[in-house]
């Protein structure tokens, strides 16, 4: 059967837990890993007569993110009730925003394989999380610690075309959330969740196909994998003449498959209406300006500045700006070293490798930005060789000491003094008369042997350049 030319249409709904101390509508703590049903009160238990009160900090964080996503911030937005029954939904409705969300019509930009993409943000709205049910054969348990935790739901336009783009978009949103300290972006602990809407159509078709919603995706890698699987499933359906149903499917990462969860026939009528317990959220221009002024330089702008200001390749600039703390670290180091590319190389290779290996954040790095800059400068001034520097770096990682101190303590400084190296070379040649003879009679392969012996004699401190020069001169004379 001839395969048609299919394209996929993807939109993402990202739920980000707002980094507030208390819940969206009560003073209950949002701390993770408290005991079961500890972070509760009449409000999060849905007791008779309990009423919600909006957490202003949650609104402010939402405005912050909205501005970073280039959204319009509504002067008047409203909370609405989304009505449905579920045992871990204490009130029988979730307080969310419906047709008057706080943030609308923004966009976000990012690079995919060196190409800049611009994806529309339809809306970003505030809502409360539900609790958590766990099922144990004959019974179920409910933990309401999460019930009422504030979330920002960020809805992209249907602008993403490939699973890779979708994953990159999600990474970018997470990156911005973390830059702003709006959300810690931890997918495993559930402080960020990602649902994908995906459909396929023939390239150039004016209409979208029937969309399927994918849930239960808890890593960016799985965003890509789940979409790849689902797109292929939909293509197979179409090409074998089957219909695609509008439904919600769960992704199973161990099987790398999606499974139908509920179909449209069972779809809820949520009976949205404005929550009469809450006033409209009013955000005046002064508030928006204040929040706008507090925004840090955003990752993409910073990466572009790194390219122009430090003349770094795009690849370097994007990696260095992944996390705000990393970019800050880099800029601190460059301020001291004035060697952007060399500093970038050390950060991107050695430092990031060690951080990854030991699963550490840049804030936990045992090597300070000042020390790293010092190391870069010592190499630049040829006080140590690149090879020695790697050894020094390892010691710095272990001890947090300055490279200068370590070089002194370990006796590692490079010998560049020619007369000293001459002495070493002479000593080595004198000790290996037979080998010198062999070399001079044509066994030039022995050259490496002499280098090794001389290095050993200098405890590795001889400048390789100088050593080569002198050794060659002596042997060939």
């Amino acid at each position, binding site marked *: 059967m001839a395969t048609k030319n299919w394209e996929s249409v993807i939109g993402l709904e990202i739920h980000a837990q707002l980094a507030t101390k208390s819940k969206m509508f009560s003073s209950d703590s949002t701390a993770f890993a408290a005991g079961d049903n500890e972070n509760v009160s009449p409000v999060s238990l849905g007791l008779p007569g309990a009423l919600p009160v909006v957490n202003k900090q949650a609104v402010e964080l939402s405005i912050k993110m909205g501005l970073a996503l280039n959204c319009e911030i509504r002067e008047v937005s409203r909370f609405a009730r989304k009505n449905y029954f579920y*045992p871990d939904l204490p009130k029988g409705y979730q307080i969310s925003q419906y047709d008057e969300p706080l943030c609308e019509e923004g966009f976000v930009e990012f690079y995919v394989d060196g190409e800049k993409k611009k994806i529309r943000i339809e809306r970003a709205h505030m809502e409360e999380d539900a609790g958590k049910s766990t099922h144990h054969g004959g019974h179920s348990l409910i933990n309401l610690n999460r019930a009422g935790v504030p979330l920002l739901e960020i809805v992209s336009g249907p602008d993403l075309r490939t699973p890779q783009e979708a994953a990159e978009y999600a990474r970018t949103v997470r990156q911005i959330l973390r830059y702003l300290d709006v959300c810690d972006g931890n997918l495993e602990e559930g402080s960020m969740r990602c649902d994908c809407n995906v459909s396929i159509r023939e390239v150039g078709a004016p209409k979208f196909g029937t969309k399927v919603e994918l849930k239960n995706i808890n890593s960016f890698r799985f965003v890509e994998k789940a979409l790849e699987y689902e797109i292929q499933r939909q293509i197979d359906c179409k090409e074998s003449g089957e219909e695609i149903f509008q439904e919600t499917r769960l992704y199973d990462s161990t099987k790398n498959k999606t499974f139908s969860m509920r179909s449209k026939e069972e779809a809820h009528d949520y009976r949205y209406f404005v929550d009469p317990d809450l006033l409209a959220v009013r955000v005046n221009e002064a508030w928006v300006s204040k929040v706008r002024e507090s925004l840090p330089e955003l990752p993409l702008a910073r990466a572009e500045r790194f390219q122009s200001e430090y003349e770094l390749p795009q690849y370097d600039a994007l990696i260095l700006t992944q996390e705000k703390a990393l970019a800050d670290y880099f800029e601190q180091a460059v301020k001291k070293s004035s060697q952007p590319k060399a500093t970038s190389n050390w950060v991107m290779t050695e430092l990031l490798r060690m951080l990854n290996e030991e699963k550490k954040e840049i804030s936990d790095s045992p090597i300070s930005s000042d020390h790293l800059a010092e190391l870069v400068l010592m190499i630049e001034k040829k006080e140590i060789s690149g090879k020695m520097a790697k050894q020094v770096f390892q010691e710095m990682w272990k001890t947090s000491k300055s490279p200068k101190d370590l070089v002194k303590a370990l006796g590692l400084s490079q010998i560049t003094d020619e007369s000293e190296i001459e002495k070493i070379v002479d000593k080595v040649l004198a000790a290996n008369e037979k080998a010198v003879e062999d070399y001079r009679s044509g066994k030039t392969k022995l050259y490496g042997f002499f280098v090794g012996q001389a290095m050993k004699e200098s405890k590795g401190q001889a400048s390789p350049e100088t050593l080569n020069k002198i050794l060659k001169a002596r042997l060939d004379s």
Partner: protein
Amino acid sequence: MEFKNKSVFELKELLEKKTVTSVEMTKYFLDRIESLDQDLNAYIQVSDKALDEAKKADDKIQAGEKGRLLGVPVGIKDLLCTRGIQTTAASKMLEGFVPPYSATVVEKLQSEGAVVLGKLNLDEFAMGSSNENSYFGAVKNPWNKEYVSGGSSGGSAAAVAAGLAPVTIGTDTGGSIRQPASFCGVVGMKPTYGRVSRYGIVAFASSLDQAGPLSRTVKDAALISEVISGFDENDSTTSERSVPQWSASINESLKGKKVGLVKEYFESKLHESVQEQMDRAIEFVKEAGAEVVEVSLSLSRLAIPVYYMVATSEASSNLARYDGVRYGYRSNFDEKPASSLDDFYERNRGEGFGSEVKRRIMLGTYALSSGYYDAYYKKAGQIRRLLAEQFQKAFEKCDVLMGPVTATPAFKLGDRISDPLEMYLNDIFTTSANLVGIPGMSVPMGFSKEGLPVGVQLMSSSFSEQVLFDVGSALEQRADIWKGLPNGY
């Protein structure tokens, strides 16, 4: 000493002068409840903490401490959460539910030294106009036990009328304070929406609910309104406006005041006793110096349908939390396990709620459903805004609106229970105040030929409660019936 027909101000004076202790006074009312309420059914539960609270109040009085209600016994509608005291909303769904917290209204009363006598009967979840929808049985009208007390705050009204409490708290979503007050011959005050915190009050219709006092006198109603009003950080819909000292500012002279009569209210068919008491009231306000003007509220004819759309829609969502998961009624699943999650919900809610509650949940669910929302809920909201505009215009012409509370005095128990529509029409004159958010008060005026009380209703613009207390006092003084108790009490 008899306290049964005394006002709160009179009781306060007795307590302050140490003529009587709060314990003696509290015991007096508890004894009366025990001997007289079995038949009347005004109370669902008497508080076993009442005498302890009274003792504490006495200690404070001895120590010279002050409190606006220090030592005064009050009754609370069983829709308000009371920490450590069962709170049922008169529903099987909440039978045995003991809240871990108290409503702000209750806290405010207690912080002024009031002693909670017990929890008063009502229509289940405040849904009803006759108190016949209570899981704990109907409240009877103390003036004639074959008649209803009115509802939903029937217990709160009957208790004051029968001298089983000097003052009580009720709630009013569409007339639930004013109508039973009128049927039982007591004062009933619904403050402006946003005056009184709804925190801890079992929600019926969030945009309409408001708590208020039922009392023997207008001045008592003013005092209790002062105590329970004010901004509450736990209720976003409360107003930050300061609360005036209404009870100390009552001016019975109505010179310069304009009393508006709503043309449309008098075009509907009024029972002759209601008409008669209205006529007296009109004479009284003129006598007190007021000018009477006619105003028109053409949209008031739509108040009932709009009210029932808004109230049932909100209720359908507010009552979703009663699912048997965390607290409240749960079916016997040991005997017959649930076949599914839906079955679990259906049995808990099907068995736990009474029929009127279920009817309203279904109505509201229907009105909010996709495909019907625009025609019902949304349209109701639009009319509601227009109605508010009409009221605003009316208040440009007058300071206070005066009219009937209901078209008839109390009706017989069982008479209307099988005809929900007829029952809903009871609220024709009272629902507008809730929809618009303005304050309303029912003041006893006299009696029908059958000896049943009849009140008149006063309404003013938002946050201008003072004029209600002024006009109410002028009427009360001339009607002069507040000391009277029904036979047998």
